[in-house]
């Protein structure tokens, strides 16, 4: 992967000036490359990575395994596109194995998520079954541990 993308993955707020120095190039070049990635759809957005467990919110998250019937034309894509339109669905993946789609869903309460599954997802044409698992705690997300690592305990000066 391009080193620029690596750096942005680690810290999307890194300034163009710092990125330019890290990569040994100019700020204009950095801006142009980011713009090109956005244009090509490689970069789909920049978001903050939150530890929601530390926020004063009652939001609940669930992981839902979905078995769906593939269509003759289009396979899983059409059903997936429909499901993806629901704002409750934060992430969705096509999987190999015992089920087809894996959904990460957010709701204001347990009830709300349960309703979403029973009233919106399960009745959809092509959905064969659902299995819902509520998430209890986030330990790691996007490669980042939610509890910080032990601080730098190296000697302050050493050979």
């Amino acid at each position: 992967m391009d080193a620029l993308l690596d750096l942005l993955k680690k810290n999307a707020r890194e300034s163009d000036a710092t990125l330019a120095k890290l990569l040994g190039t100019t700020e204009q070049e950095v801006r142009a490359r980011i713009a090109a990635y956005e244009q090509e759809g490689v970069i789909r957005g920049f978001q903050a990575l939150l530890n929601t467990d530390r926020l004063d919110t009652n939001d609940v998250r669930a992981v839902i395994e979905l078995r769906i019937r593939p269509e003759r034309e289009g396979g899983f894509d059409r059903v997936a596109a429909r499901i993806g339109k629901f704002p409750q669905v934060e992430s969705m993946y096509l999987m190999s194995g015992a089920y087809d789609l894996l959904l990460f869903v957010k709701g204001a309460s347990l009830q709300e998520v349960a309703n979403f599954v029973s009233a919106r997802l399960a009745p959809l044409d092509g959905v064969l079954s659902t299995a819902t698992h509520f998430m209890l705690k986030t330990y790691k997300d996007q490669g980042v541990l939610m509890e910080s690592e032990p601080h730098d305990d190296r000697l302050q000066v050493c050979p």
Partner: protein
Amino acid sequence: MTTDSKSAPDFVAPHVRSLPKSGIRDFFDIVAGRKDVISLGIGEPDFQTPWHIRERAIEAIERGATRYTSNLGAPELRQALAAYMRQSFQCDYDWQHEILVTVGVSEAFDLAMRAVLSPGDEVLYHEPCFVAYAPLIRMAHGVPVPVETFRKDDFRLTVAELEKKVTPRTRALLLNFPNNPTGATLDRADTEALADFAIRHNLLVISDEVYSELTYEGGRHSMAAIPRLRDRLIFLNGFSKAWSMTGFRLGYACAPAPLTDAMMKIHQFGMMCASSISQTAGLEAVRHGDAAIAEMRDSYHLRRNFVVASLNEMGLDCFMPRGAFYVFPSIQSTGLSSKEFALRLLNEYNVACVPGGAFGACGEGFLRCAYATGMEPLKEAMDRMKTFVRALAH
């Protein structure tokens, strides 16, 4: 009750008493205990030891692999190191007789000196350099002979400088590239010229290549890759820097059997063997650590770019080092000595760097900045240094 220091007998040997304290140690005492200091004075990776390596060490303890190993080191580890040497430098070392696993490169270097030096033997070593070489040469009753390297040569060691210092008493030549504290590296022409020099004067070469894996450009040019040097080379390497395993204290030496055997004699009486747990971790590192090294190396590489660009931008001349995780900017334009600069930077801006003079007299006028530190503190440190340098100019 206190002892009267005047009448207390002094048991310390004169050659130890006369050993100067490390200049780094001096500086450490000043920095120690101070909070909110950003330290660029740490010659140690900031990365945690890769988890798969730590996990193997834990597993070694769980299954009870906690006993002495062979004096030379665990056979599997020596076999893996022989394979590593073959793959990295196309050289063949016999794992049964030519590889010795040690407690870090420091022990390996100490063993090498004690195994080959007779009192009065001279050892050529280049400055600025790692602080342990000259004292260890002295402790082995040898005579350390510094050879200067210069900014104009990007701190590469030249044969011309060596020729000025070689005498009939010269026994060995010590090399450390990629270099601590300058980040200097050698290219192929350099290693060839140094090999010729060593052969011409019948010298043993001790090459400490502990930063070899952290080479960013220009390729790795090891003394071990020169076949005609083989019978006069002690190659030293370790796990601390490349695999971020400093606390495991694990290194190794590769040398012809008679030299390995001589070093092993001292090692077996003084040390027995390196920690068996560390050896298990080292085996995992050398077998499966390539991806972890690559990731850390990429990160150092980018940080080096950032630090060199930042230093040059603020007016501190700094060449682009190709290896290790140090940059060695000149602070001569500020008119301060390197110690004054470092002390004021520490006291007024809470940034710690090591004055170049701690690494040899010719390091005066320079500063060692280690970039083995996270990007956020690194950025902040560069900002503070810039403010300091600007303030000095007014």
